[in-house]
């Protein structure tokens, strides 16, 4: 897939100008979090489960060499052929070789972000094969010649009316209305059923690879992935190293988080575990199965400070909760993975140079980190990438100097408080009459879109100290009067996770981003700043 992350700002402006699509994104940003919250609410023990799954994922990554070897051995015992691919091209050529070996012409494909990453469809089509996406969302964007805008719902950027137009022009099925979404789903079912029955090779992804016995977990609602896995004579599972989990129980524990985080369902319709080709007495199933394991820099990420990113279970919750994603949509990010997870994965899997804007497309609101079921400290990793951009002089000189000055000042608390007090008081005087500023020097980025409210006269620290003094006085008075007037201490956040839950990556010391300079970076939690 052609990457356009380097024009993120232009992509974003173009997306914001399309009001119809913006409205649909707003609705999704409103409803998806509600569904997720309701599902987690009725589950009850989100934190406990998240902790458990994170421990298991970290353990699996710490010992990935061991578990990968175990999986490979078990999968081979089950009758699979296991292939290793260092990069996307290698995966594509392995898949093409298998198809050509069987003289296959028709491929039925289940949803797979990994093959989006490697551009498999284009690769196979260039070799003359017919590749049909069978997940409804993937099918829609394939027919429209577009790319996914969301990792779970790839076609959520399209309206039903657009899908209707698309189907009317692409399916030669005569006069029909297609006025309801159910009609559109019905038509896709009809058209794709043919394809399922004729396909010679099925290609699917995997949500988890189970090391202890070589099974591969497939999670869908439509059942399309299972048709791809069961009907064609040859099955190819395209996936990545980091999907490995030790036991069957680990896969289903993770699934509890995955479904609730992704769609707010308590359970997906179809959760399947496949071990290999059909057994001797079986009457159906593929005769030959392949598992292609892609690395594509994941082993380098494992050795870097960004190792935690490999815990991602691709649920899409961070997208659904991100105000930037809601604003600009998935396509603006310019590659396969959008939103917070994409703003980290894209620089790691491609290059920071090509995607400098992505880690900056963040308001540091922290919602992604709070909902991430894999317990990935997304805001921290985004900040670390920004830090790296600054170190490697990838960010604009003006920013870097501004930040350096700010950092210096912040380390002189007296001077800092004095200067901010003068500044705030000055702005208070200047803006007193109108209560806001329509323009401010060096802040056009803010004031071009909205007014800046005039400060009320005192800085936060001044107000905070005054409040403390007041409370102290009240407490002293209370003590004398024998009554306590305790209030909750505003410095103690209630539920924020503590630094102790973060584990330093295993291995030999900290290493920077793959392809970046080696060196130590300060790692602090966003909440400490």
């Amino acid at each position, binding site marked *: 897939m052609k990457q356009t992350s380097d024009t993120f700002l232009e992509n974003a402006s173009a997306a914001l100008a399309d009001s119809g699509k913006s409205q649909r994104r707003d609705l999704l940003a409103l409803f998806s979090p509600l569904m997720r919250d309701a599902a987690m609410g009725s589950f009850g023990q989100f934190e406990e489960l998240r902790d458990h799954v994170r421990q298991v994922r970290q*353990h699996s990554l710490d010992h990935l060499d061991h578990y*990968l070897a175990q999986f490979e051995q078990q999968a081979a015992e089950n009758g699979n052929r296991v292939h290793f*691919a260092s990069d996307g091209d290698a995966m594509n050529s392995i898949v093409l070789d298998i198809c050509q070996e069987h003289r296959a012409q028709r491929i039925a494909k289940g949803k797979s972000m990994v093959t989006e990453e490697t551009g498999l469809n284009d690769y196979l089509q260039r070799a003359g094969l017919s590749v049909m996406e069978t997940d*409804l969302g993937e099918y829609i964007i394939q027919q429209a010649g577009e790319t996914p805008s969301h990792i779970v719902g790839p076609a959520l950027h399209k309206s039903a009316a657009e899908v209707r137009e698309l189907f009317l022009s692409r399916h030669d099925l005569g006069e029909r209305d297609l006025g309801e979404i159910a009609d559109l789903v019905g038509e896709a079912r009809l058209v794709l059923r043919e394809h399922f029955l004729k396909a010679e090779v099925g290609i699917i992804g995997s949500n988890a690879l189970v090391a202890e016995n070589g099974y591969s977990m497939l999670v869908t*609602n439509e059942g399309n992935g299972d048709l791809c896995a069961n009907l064609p004579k040859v099955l190819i599972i395209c996936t990545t190293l980091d999907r490995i989990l030790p036991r069957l*129980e680990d896969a289903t524990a993770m699934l509890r988080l995955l479904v609730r985080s992704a769609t707010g369902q308590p359970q997906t319709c179809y959760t399947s575990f496949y071990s290999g080709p059909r057994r001797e007495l079986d009457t159906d199933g593929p005769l030959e199965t392949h598992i292609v394991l892609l690395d594509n820099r994941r082993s380098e990420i*494992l050795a870097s400070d960004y190792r935690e990113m490999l815990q991602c279970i691709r649920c899409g919750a961070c997208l659904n909760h991100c105000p930037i994603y809601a604003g600009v949509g998935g396509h603006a990010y310019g590659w396969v993975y959008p939103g917070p997870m994409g703003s980290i994965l894209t620089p790691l899997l491609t290059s920071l140079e090509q995607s400098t804007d992505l880690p900056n497309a963040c308001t540091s609101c922290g919602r992604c980190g709070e909902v991430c079921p894999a317990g990935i400290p997304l805001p921290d990793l985004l900040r670390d990438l920004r830090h790296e951009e600054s170190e490697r002089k990838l960010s604009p000189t003006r920013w870097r100097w501004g930040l350096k000055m700010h950092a210096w000042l912040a380390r002189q608390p007296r001077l800092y408080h004095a200067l901010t007090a003068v500044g705030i008081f000055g702005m208070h005087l200047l803006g007193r009459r109108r209560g806001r500023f329509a323009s401010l020097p060096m802040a056009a980025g803010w004031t071009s879109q909205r007014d800046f409210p005039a400060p009320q006269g005192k800085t936060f620290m001044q107000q905070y100290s005054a409040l403390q003094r007041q409370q102290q006085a009240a407490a002293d008075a209370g003590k004398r009067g024998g009554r306590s007037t305790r209030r909750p201490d505003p410095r103690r956040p209630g539920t924020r996770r503590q630094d102790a839950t973060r584990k330093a990556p295993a291995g030999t010391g900290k290493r920077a981003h793959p392809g970046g300079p080696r060196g130590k970076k300060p790692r602090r939690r966003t909440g400490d700043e």
Partner: protein
Amino acid sequence: MNNSARSEIFARLRHACQSAEAENIQRALPPTDSAPGAPLPSDDLATAFLTNVLKNQGTVECVANRSAAVKALADYVYRHFRSHRLVAGNDANLAAMPWREAGVLPRFGAIEPGEPVALSYALLGIAETGATALQTGKANPAVNNFLSEHHLVLVDSSRLVATMEQAWARIRQEMNKSGRPRGYNFIAGPSSTGDIEGQLVYGAHGPRNWHVILMGDIAATALEDARALAGK
């Protein structure tokens, strides 16, 4: 080429991993029972299972024994298709049912295009998820689960378990006895999609209807309670 990719990948992994002894790795693995499961909607296993099946948009029936099961199946198929035809895998449990009593004779084998109804005999029913676990093979070709319009699943109440962890424990026992089957399908609802405008529509690529018949010694009020709990 593939072999060199393999050794390069393993070299990089060993560099990034702890290269611990297998025993130590095993010991460091968190126990499976520290994973909380979803709370069950009822203390009664059958009621909890039925509630979640209903919540998953399945339809349900309870029957006391095999004669009643055959009759319920016959009624279901007749109600929808005015016929008594259905397909079922070569499952000894299904072959032994008193089909003649209800005037039905299934065709035993894998579903063919144009056959709308398939019947499966569940390996397990899982209360936590409201899912029926099916094992692929001669006794239940996987295509029967996915190509039918109406998928009927018979669950013996002795095969109900509360959680996924319990399900795996039972499955492991079977696996140790008779090896690893090609696959397991955990089915929890008719096929659905939310891919257009996020609106949930049933009958995507798989069955449009998923009907569960729970058979055995079940509390008389289980179904009624389940309907109340599921709001259906």
